[in-house]
């Protein structure tokens, strides 16, 4: 690991100022991703600003504003605490399931909510510094485009990057229409709708998200919804646990008698950002919750997919995963 200056702050304003003053500085929260990447020489900050002492850990009901009745999650709250908070478990069980589908108990105890959003791809070409990678070193090419790309994207990729976003938590947050609150060096807080937070790679795959240098995630807000009785997070992976998703699906349904009022479907492991399946959702609105309708919705969504050489299986897998996640959501969202 390269030498770096270790700085600590207990104040949000000074944290954002420190990062704005030094473009080579990075925030240190849980450390589970940044330290790993520094050991691999992928990330090379010359300063780490330890923000773990900032008081941004609370989970609380939102009592005013646009998201009134929803919940606000502190950017520096730990993944474990968030997943197990009574308010989240009872009102947003989809988020609990998604967080618990990711990583291991040890990592969830360390990792923060903001850090989960900002974690980087686990594409092996990104991690291996001897390989070309436009995300790590713009202009060097994409090793995965014609390489081993079994784990890679089927939606929204570009010739420059076919990496996927690794988070489970973010897939649930995308489905729940979360809003990311970020604060910059000017002290002002801006709200970023979750769909606009992460980016597709395009010509600038080095940018994972729309956060500016020095900006810090202070909280994530989830608006009130009626999905708690019928939601499910399905994760399909090579091992039963502690593996990144081949495909994952966050599904949530709101019913009126036999009719779907609205359905939310988001996918992980398929794109550079959590992939909101808007086409499937559009199809399902107003329909009956039957397996045939779920299948048709899934096929409509997966029709837009463009697989790479080694991940064609994700089309049928993704289709079946959407059907199963919606079916499990309808059945009360219980793990079997």
């Amino acid at each position, binding site marked *: 690991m390269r030498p770096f200056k270790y700085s600590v702050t207990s104040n949000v304003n000074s944290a954002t100022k420190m990062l704005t003053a030094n473009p080579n500085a990075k925030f240190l929260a849980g*450390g589970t991703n940044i330290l790993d990447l520094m050991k691999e020489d992928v990330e090379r900050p010359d300063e780490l600003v330890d923000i773990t002492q900032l008081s941004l850990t609370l989970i609380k009901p939102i009592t005013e504003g646009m998201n009134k009745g929803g919940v606000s999650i502190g950017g520096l709250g730990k993944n474990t605490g968030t997943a197990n908070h009574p308010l989240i*478990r009872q009102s947003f069980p989809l988020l609990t399931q998604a967080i618990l589908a990711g990583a291991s108990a040890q*990592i969830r105890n360390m990792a923060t909510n903001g850090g989960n959003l900002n974690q980087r791809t686990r594409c092996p070409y990104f991690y291996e510094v001897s390989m070309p990678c436009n995300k790590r070193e713009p202009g060097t090419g994409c090793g995965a485009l014609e390489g081993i790309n079994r784990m890679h994207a089927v939606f929204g990729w570009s010739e420059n990057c076919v990496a996927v976003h690794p988070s489970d938590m973010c897939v649930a947050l995308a489905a729940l229409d979360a809003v990311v609150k970020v604060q910059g060096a000017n002290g002002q807080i801006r709200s970023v709708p979750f769909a606009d937070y992460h980016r597709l790679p395009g010509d600038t795959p080095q940018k994972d998200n729309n956060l500016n240098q020095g900006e810090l995630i202070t909280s994530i807000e989830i608006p009130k919804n009626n999905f708690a009785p019928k939601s499910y997070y399905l*994760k399909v992976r090579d*091992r039963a646990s502690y593996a990144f998703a081949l495909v994952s699906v966050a599904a949530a349904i709101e019913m009126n008698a036999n009719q779907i009022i609205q359905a939310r479907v988001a996918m992980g492991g398929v794109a550079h950002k959590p992939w909101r399946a808007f086409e499937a959702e559009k199809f399902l609105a107003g329909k009956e919750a039957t397996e045939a309708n779920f299948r048709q919705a899934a096929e409509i969504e997966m029709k837009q997919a463009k697989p790479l050489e080694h991940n064609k299986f994700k089309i049928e897998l993704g289709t079946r995963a959407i059907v199963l996640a919606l079916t499990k959501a309808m059945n009360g969202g219980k*793990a079997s």
Partner: protein
Amino acid sequence: MTEENQNQELTEDEKQLFGQLLCEDQNDLTDFNEARRNFLKQITLAGGGILAMQMFGGEVFARSINDPLNAELPVNLENAVNVAFKVNGVKKSLDVDSRMTLLDTLRERLQLTGSKKGCDHGQCGACTVIVDGKRVLSCLTLAATCTGKSVTTIEGLAKGGELHPMQAAFLKHDGFQCGYCTPGQICSAVALMTEAKNGEVSYVTPDVRVKPGSLQLTDNEIRERMSGNICRCGAYPNIVDAIKEVHSGKAVAQTWDFVDQKQSTQI
């Protein structure tokens, strides 16, 4: 950091590398501090900067093993950070390089070598320790972030010569073969008992919406919750048995035994 505490000589390895890399006679480099800096500079110029850092690291760590716990490091630390924390109930205060992980600090500075370095990338769980009651990966924790915290390692579990119940259960159920992952497995399992008591749910918990309360863990739950600890010998069934016994408080049948005297004569 005082001059007295700095290394007085180059090691054999360093001298040898000098010989290979420098044109001038190494004996001319009489000031060893200057020599060290030159060495680092030269080796960096020679394109071996990372190698040099690793070598220096190894040398520094090896040398510090015999130091009193609170002694300063024998060389100037770049980006030194003081960390004052509790390890297994004992207060410690030491200066570390900002890059030092908690794992390296425990093993190389505090002589607590029970916590193991498996992958050093947060993928195997061998380095699991308990910080402020929570199991974490010490290989992905910077020592600098541990000030004010309380760390429990495998060495801190036994009390007054009595094994922790989880240690005893791992012995009873033969929850290991080579033993390398065992300290991490046991620390992880000990913290898991608290998590279950607190009613924390997992990905395989049937319904996460139920009100938090103490949970009875099934084998499936234990496996899911222990998935961050890899055992390449494959002692998983025995590890599950050990954890189940401690968690339930009910004896789980032991599936092996030592041979008795009569049996031993028949072998």
